[in-house]
């Protein structure tokens, strides 16, 4: 009895997966709107990708130099850690601004403004 339970549960899980509502998108093929939507997707993706690359590079540089500083002088670890967190927060804020701009670009219903 217990042997059969496992495949049965797995089957139920996959059935449930199949029946999940996928994003049903109703496409109205107005060429002006679709081109605007396409451009907004491309620009939004480009913004967040470029910013994440730059932000990750800067955070890596900050962390690596902080690690070097701590390993050379462990006594100053407390101050360095504080400055590191502060700097990481400021870098992260800029990336989040870009993320918000991306979300705004993608969420605007462009059809209303054509």
């Amino acid at each position: 009895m217990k042997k059969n339970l496992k495949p049965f549960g797995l089957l139920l899980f996959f059935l449930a997966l199949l029946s999940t509502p996928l994003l049903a998108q109703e496409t109205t093929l107005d060429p002006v709107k679709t081109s605007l939507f396409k451009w907004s997707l491309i620009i939004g993706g480009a913004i967040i990708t470029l910013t994440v690359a730059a932000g990750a590079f800067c955070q890596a540089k900050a962390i690596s130099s902080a690690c070097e500083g701590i390993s050379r002088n462990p006594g100053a670890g407390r101050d360095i850690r504080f400055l590191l967190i502060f700097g990481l927060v400021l870098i992260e804020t800029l990336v989040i601004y870009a993320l918000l701009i991306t979300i705004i670009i993608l969420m605007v219903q462009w059809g209303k403004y054509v």
Partner: protein
Amino acid sequence: MEELEHSLFLVDFFNKIFSRPLTSLLALIGIEVKDPNHLIPDHVVMSLMVMVFLILFFGLSSRKLKLIPSKFQSVLELVIQFFESLLVDIVGEEGKKYLPLVGTIGLFIFFCNILGLVPGFMSPTSKLNVTVGCALVVFVYYHLQGIKSQGLFKYLKHFTGPIPLIAPLLLPIEIISHFSRPLSLSIRLFGNIFAEELLIVIIASIIPFILPLPFMAVAIFTAIIQAFVFVLLTCIYIGGAVAHSEEY
């Protein structure tokens, strides 16, 4: 975003009780309510709940304090000590008097962020109104404390920098940087929590079963980090405002 979120049960319940008297009160002032069933928005109800929880929980647990703490009391003392040590590190020994505001804002934001992970609730901090409120409180508070500790003229003089010759150059920069502080505080918190909830909603709309779990685990981490960052920046702003000019 409205089409992605169904209306929450608690908000509907709250609206059913309170929207009638509030509508009539607003009508007394002369404001017409268009949609009385959705008068009170989600984030107001949720932040009220966090407020009531914080007041009841921390208020009741501070009733019977003992010199030798029980397990429960020592856990709560750890929380208070965390805020206190942060303030002492950044502001200095006199920073302990700013503990009430800093601790309250930190706990409020932390519980607001965490509340979004409970099913049937949402994070109040994923709306810009709540975060702007917190940031404006911090903005007004640290200016007031700076004026209180240094005097009005000395505090205003500290905007112009050390050298009088370049003061006209420094003054606009300082003013702009001070006004950008509440902006960056509020938008950072809002952006983090909003993006995280949006991510969970989108993932759950693709496969609602097991896939959102790792993202929710990351969300716990984000909630703690963001509350910490808000408190850290508040401490830094207060420390910068009340610092005496010889240290500056």
